[in-house]
């Protein structure tokens, strides 16, 4: 009797759902990590970095949804340093299987490995760590942030194009700097470029006073080279290196000529419209993290728009299918790599005032998709969870 009653409820619930139009709630979860101090406080990171992008993506989805009877909602949570990130994720997963995550790598994996996350759709909108797209990938974890390797490959393509073949590098000591330097070395090798010398930045002097004196000496023994690469992902010392090197050479990497997922200087491909929409809503410029969160939100919106479904299995299958494409203001349709869930996207190479190039650069060919000259191509990725 009880069983029959239950199945009746289930059937009624199912019918109610079938009659209803799609409705999607997305959770945005940010896990704060300790931020080491930097030499300069000129560019504070916005409090709502990333979240603001998700909110703009939500607005875009809502506008589209109103013509189709589709509804969207955003729930937000932020876990302070030392807080219980996994508990917060579990609580959010109890409300929705769609999460956009800004979290340290180990926390991302802990969340993706939760029982409650199996069958969910999680988007990494912050971390560029290669391992997450490689042997540490998870079938539930998609990546809208470009991997470090995608960015350093983009820069390497610019080096090739400009024939800057002899390179030197200064790397910081933070884990992000080390990862970026590692990705850079990989990219230089991939594109046949030479890293002539490397140094580690381990000063503790205050560069606002000393840059003019310290940096020339520090870079003097590099000898001659074509360009200097900086691995300074926390933007600690890099800004003081420009125009202070012993040899008058361009600076690239974390400062100077930088490969980025998004930047206010991108104005082609309709990008100025996204900037203006975002600027109106949040009174600041749109960062790469905002863009990654926006892209995650729009990915879900696009999948709901095209399928009319709101269950994770249907949406996941659609997102990974050949039919999916996202118009992301980068001049090409954005799609997902079926082998590791990475959003395929052009990478802009910019300086603070203008776009210099957009990778893939012309002439870098690929068997199936030129965008796959950036980052881990299918044969290079050890990710097996998606196949």
């Amino acid at each position: 009797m009880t069983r029959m009653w239950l199945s009746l409820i289930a059937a009624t619930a199912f019918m109610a759902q079938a009659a209803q139009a799609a409705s999607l709630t997305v959770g945005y979860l940010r896990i704060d990590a300790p931020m080491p101090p930097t030499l300069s406080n000129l560019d504070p990171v916005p409090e709502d970095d990333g979240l603001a992008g998700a909110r703009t993506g939500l607005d875009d989805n809502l506008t589209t949804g109103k013509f189709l009877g589709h509804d969207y909602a955003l729930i937000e949570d932020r876990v302070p340093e030392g807080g219980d990130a996994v508990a917060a994720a579990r609580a959010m997963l109890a409300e929705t299987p769609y999460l956009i995550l800004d979290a340290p790598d180990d926390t991302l994996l802990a969340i993706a490995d939760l029982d409650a996350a199996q069958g969910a759709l999680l988007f990494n909108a912050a971390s560029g760590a290669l391992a997450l797209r490689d042997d540490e990938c998870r079938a539930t974890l998609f990546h809208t942030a470009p991997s470090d390797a995608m960015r350093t490959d983009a820069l390497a393509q610019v080096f090739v194009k400009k024939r800057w073949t002899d390179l030197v590098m200064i790397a910081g000591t933070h884990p992000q700097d080390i990862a970026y330097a590692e990705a850079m070395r990989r990219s230089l090798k991939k594109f046949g470029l030479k890293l002539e010398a490397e140094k580690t930045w381990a000063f503790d002097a205050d560069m606002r006073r000393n840059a003019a004196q310290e940096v020339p000496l520090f870079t003097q023994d590099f000898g001659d080279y074509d360009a200097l690469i900086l691995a300074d992902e926390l933007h600690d010392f890099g800004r003081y290196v420009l125009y202070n090197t012993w040899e008058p050479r361009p600076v690239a990497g974390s400062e100077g000529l930088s490969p980025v997922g998004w930047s206010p200087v991108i104005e082609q491909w309709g990008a100025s419209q996204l900037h203006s929409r975002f600027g109106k809503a949040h009174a600041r410029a749109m960062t790469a993290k905002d863009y990654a969160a926006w892209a995650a939100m729009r990915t879900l919106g696009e999948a709901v728009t095209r399928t009319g479904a709101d269950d994770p299995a249907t949406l996941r299958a659609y997102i990974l299918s050949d039919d999916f494409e996202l118009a992301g203001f980068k001049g090409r349709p954005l799609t997902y790599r079926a082998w590791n869930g990475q959003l395929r996207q052009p990478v802009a190479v910019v300086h603070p005032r203008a776009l210099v190039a957009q990778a893939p650069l012309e002439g870098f060919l690929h068997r199936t998709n030129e965008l796959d000259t950036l980052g881990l191509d299918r044969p290079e990725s050890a990710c097996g969870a998606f196949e």
Partner: protein
Amino acid sequence: MRFFVIAALLASTSAHADEIWVTNEKDDTVSVISTDTLEVIATYPTGERPRGVTFSHDYSRLYICASDSDAVQVMDPATGRILHDLPSGEDPEQFVLHPDDRHLYIANEDDAITTVVDVQTRKVVAQIDVGVEPEGMAVSPDGRIAITTSETTNMAHWIDTETQKLFANTLVDSRPRHAEFVRDGAEMWVSSEIGGTITVFDTATQKEKAKIEFEVKGVHPDRVQPVGFEFTTGDEFAFVALGPSNHVAVVNAATYEVEDYILVGRRVWHMAFNADRSRLFTTNGVSGDVTVIDVAKRKALKSIKVGRFPWGAAFRPVPDS
């Protein structure tokens, strides 16, 4: 005798000295090209970021979407002077003039709104909520239906011009850019820049009737991006600008087959025909020029340097004087 010959030459020249008006998005000017000499004969200043451009039916007024000035400007084409601005809503990108010669339907790109302005009273008649980043605008020949396409929502919105309300919203491929009614309004075509297609709708049912795809040899499909398009006499062929592929496609409008690709300047946007539609003028945004195409031969004849980032184009016949 000699005098007679010269007079005859002058007469024949002026008979064909029509004009193509081109907006230069990043120069805040319009360039005027003579369809006879194929040279720029005048350049006039406009408001900021001029894009969409169209003439009143008697060609006595030029309407210009000055996007960053948040206005539609009205220019006297005889003098190049701006006469006045029309209220347009914010960031007008593209518009279409209703067959009544009186109502402009304007896409307000930043506001997800289509604004309807009466050019005589200079008042906003209606504002209609549409999808994110409205751009492509069209109106049916009988004036009953106006279309707005929205780039991020990826829809064609069908507006009943009687009630100024939406009566249908149809999905198309990514980033719809331009719309046109064809065959006396029986069909409505929408280009999708990122999707790389043109969707053909049956106007009566608003149902998809055909989809046209493009393939340019040696160009990655991602870079084949249909934007503006126009039809030859009798709607026989559509000439379709394919953006950064730097080609214009020639589509047989009866079979929906692509018959030819013509190499033009870089990032081709929009276009306008001359009076007998024997020549087509395309705006090439990145190379900052206009390509003149021989329509019958399907070949580029010449490129004409204009201002920076030419965007819209409109034809103006010049009466014999």
